[in-house]
C-alpha cells in the first residue's frame, strides 16, 4: 500500500538552524547532506506516485515541484500512474 510519511510525524524534531555543522564533525555533516538528498529523492518519488494515482497531470506536478513539465517528466516518468 502506498503511504506518505506525514511531515508532522517525521520533522517534529527538525530545526536545521539548531543543527548547523559543528566544525569538529564535518564528516557527520557531509554524511547528513547525502542522507538528506537520498531521503528527499525518495520522498519526492512517493509524493509524485500518490499525485499520479489521484489523477494529477504532469503539468500540475511540475508546477508544484517548481520545475518545468519537461524536467519533471524526464526525471520521474518511470513512476507508474
Amino acid at each position, binding site marked *: 500500500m502506498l503511504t506518505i*510519511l506525514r511531515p508532522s510525524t517525521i*520533522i517534529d524534531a527538525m530545526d536545521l538552524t539548531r543543527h548547523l555543522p559543528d566544525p569538529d564533525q564535518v564528516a557527520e555533516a557531509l554524511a547528513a547532506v547525502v542522507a538528506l538528498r537520498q*531521503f528527499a529523492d525518495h520522498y519526492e518519488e512517493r509524493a509524485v506516485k500518490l499525485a499520479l494515482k489521484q489523477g494529477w497531470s504532469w503539468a500540475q506536478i511540475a508546477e508544484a515541484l517548481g520545475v518545468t513539465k519537461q524536467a519533471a517528466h524526464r526525471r520521474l516518468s518511470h513512476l507508474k500512474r
Partner: protein
Amino acid sequence: MFKTLRIRFQDVRTIARLCTAAENIARAEPGSEHLVLASLDLPDGTARDAFARLGVSREAFAEAIQAQFADALGSVGLQVPAAEAAPPASAKPHSMLYRAAPSGQALIERMVHSPRRAARQPLAGADILLAVAEEQFSIAARAFARLGIRQEQLADAAMQALEGHAS
C-alpha cells in the same frame, strides 16, 4: 601476450557482471555500497570469503547501510526509522550507457588500476573490497565502520581471500 588478452577479456566480463548486479540492487545509479553487495554475487567467491573472515553477513552489511542513513538524518534532528531512511528506489528505465553514481565510478576506476592488475591477476570480487578499504567517508565505509570493521581489517580480509583464491 595470450595470457594478458585472456585476463583482460575475463576482467571485462567480471566488470560487466558486477555493474549489472549493482544496478539491479541500486535500481538507479549504483554507488560503492551497491558494488560491495554485488561483489558478493560474483562466482569467484572471494568477496564472500572476505565477508566470512570478517564475520559479517550480506544482510548485516545491507542493514548497516540503512542504519548509517538513519544515523546521519538523526544527526540533523530528523528521526526516521532505518527502513524509511533510504528505501529502495523505483526502478528507472535502463539507459543504453552504464551510469554509476560518482562513488561507484571512482571505485571501479581504482579497482581497474590496482597494483594487482599490473601483476596480471584477473579481477575478483575481493578486489572491490580492497578498493573500498581505501575509502574513509563513503556510504560503504560508514556502513563497515558501523559494523566495527576498520579499513585495515577489510583490506587484510580481502587480501587473504584473494591469496587463497590464487593458490
